[in-house]
């Protein structure tokens, strides 16, 4: 059967199926290559690095701001959305460069959202970008070119069919090629998404592993007061997102209203398929048979 002999609607259906198959093939080709990338040995002590990997600069900066507020280094200004440092020497208590940059922003009373626009805060994330990029956890030049190389064949196949059909239609005096053109643009959009997707497979695997390791802790966050278990909450927020508890989410919504954060309804939806069934139990003590 010659697909070029198909009538208009049938050819469009064929073309949709072809594009979907080519996008799936593209994804498989990229995944097969990136699956060979090892998970690198990088220090995971910094929760902001994990947040940056998961969702980028905005997430890391917001998490740093919320953590500093929970630590009492940032305080609210009379019920407004403005924050300021609790003491002049607060900036000396920063544990990471991103915290120092955020605290510097709030040396004077400032709208919370302003922290996302400050150059110093953005620059404080440069090291994260560099580290993750060098370790192939997020896209870099090498990854980009490898993906581009693997998208050539699917691109050519779909382009071939669309161009032949396009010129055939024009040569027959038909100009009803708009839908074909739209489908081709959508297909290019799909390829572009695959080409430029920020995280590599290694980055996704690292995040998946962290979610699996910390799922039992995540499930306990409701029983862990924020002020007593701040590091745990920060790490969980970095790995799973700041919509971990309503109080945390509400704080983010209050100070960053333009970001429209939604809560996740239950923990399993944010774990996805990475939820572990570990009970975390040990030997349980070798108590013996009893008497």
């Amino acid at each position: 059967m010659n697909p070029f002999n198909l009538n208009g609607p049938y050819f469009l259906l064929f073309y949709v199926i072809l594009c979907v198959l080519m996008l799936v093939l593209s994804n498989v080709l990229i995944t097969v290559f990136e699956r060979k990338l090892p998970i690198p040995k990088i220090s995971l002590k910094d929760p902001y690095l994990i947040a940056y990997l998961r969702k980028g600069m905005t997430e890391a900066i917001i998490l740093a701001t919320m953590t500093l507020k929970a630590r009492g280094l940032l305080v609210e200004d009379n019920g407004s959305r403005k924050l300021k440092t609790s003491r002049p020497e607060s900036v000396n208590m920063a544990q990471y460069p991103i915290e120092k940059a955020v605290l510097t922003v709030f040396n004077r009373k400032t709208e919370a959202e302003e922290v996302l626009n400050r150059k110093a805060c953005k620059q404080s994330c440069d090291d994260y970008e560099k580290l993750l990029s060098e370790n192939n956890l997020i896209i870099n030049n090498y990854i980009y070119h490898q993906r581009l190389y693997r998208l050539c064949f699917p691109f050519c196949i779909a382009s071939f069919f669309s161009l032949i059909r396009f010129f055939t239609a024009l040569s027959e005096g038909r100009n009803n090629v708009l839908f074909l053109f739209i489908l081709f643009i959508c297909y290019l959009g799909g390829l572009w998404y695959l080409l430029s997707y920020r995280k590599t497979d290694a980055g996704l695997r690292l995040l998946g592993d962290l979610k699996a390791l910390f799922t039992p802790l995540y499930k306990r966050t409701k029983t862990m007061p924020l002020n007593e278990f701040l590091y745990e909450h920060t790490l969980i927020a970095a790995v799973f997102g700041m919509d971990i508890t309503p109080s945390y989410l509400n704080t983010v919504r209050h100070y960053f209203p333009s970001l429209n954060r939604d809560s996740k309804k239950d923990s399993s939806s944010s774990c996805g398929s990475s939820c572990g069934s570990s009970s975390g139990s040990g030997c349980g003590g070798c108590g013996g048979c009893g008497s």
Partner: protein
Amino acid sequence: MGAAVVAEVRFKDRFGLGWRPEYAANILMNIDKIDIIEIIGENFVNDKHLTNSLKTLATQIPISIHCVSLGLASSLPVNIKRIEKMAKLFDVITPVSWSEHFAFVRSKYFEIGHLAAPPRNEDTIKGSVKNINVAKEIIGSLPFLENIATLVSPPCSVLSEAQWINQIVQKSSAGILLDLHNLLANSYNFKFCPIAFLDEINLNMIYMIHLSGGRYIENPIHPEKVHLLDDHLHDIPEEIYNLLTIVAEKCPNDLTVIIERDGCFPSFNHILFQLNKSKLAIQKGRNNAHLKRKYEDKL
């Protein structure tokens, strides 16, 4: 000072914790203060994502795998399917070591549900050696075997625990994971001296140490009797550090010391404090051994 420096350089002892989700975040945060992590194999083997997550954990810190359900110390053949399932973890990571117990956990027909002390006789020695060799063939390396605490003296026993353990390790070449609180509990419950046990057991085969705590419980039938229960829910008692010093003094091997805590979790700083205390106890033992050698050489 000179003796302390020499003793320190000679041994490459390692100090670590059992991996517990409650401490997961703090372990990551304090990874430079911990040398090794021990995971319970059964907690990871049933979930593919958790199994794979070991790859990431292994990039952060060396891992030892501790199993609780194989039941190697038995006259009955070990369940090969269980070992093969556990071996999947070894496909994912290369652990520093793996361990099980001098215990059985099932009969032919039912699962006991906890570690039970087998009779200490020739049958269980033969069975244990055979099971250890089967495990070695499937997994690819010999395990360290841990002494367990028991509230019931196993019937049909003709050997002491130390004699029985010595024979198994001699015939199988497996190493010993010495749980000092289990030793303390057994010595209290069965009225023997733990130091005498250390004199009897083959210290040359000890490679790992477990430290934990427990509590005293009343015998439900004879309330006047009190037993020491190894429940892993309490701090490490002082006697354990003293026993640790004695082991460090006499054992010629590098030791891996693991603190086990399964509940009633204190602050992580408190756990690190206990870890540091165990380092000091080991160092004291090593120093004692060094001084002893030094004076013996002079004589």
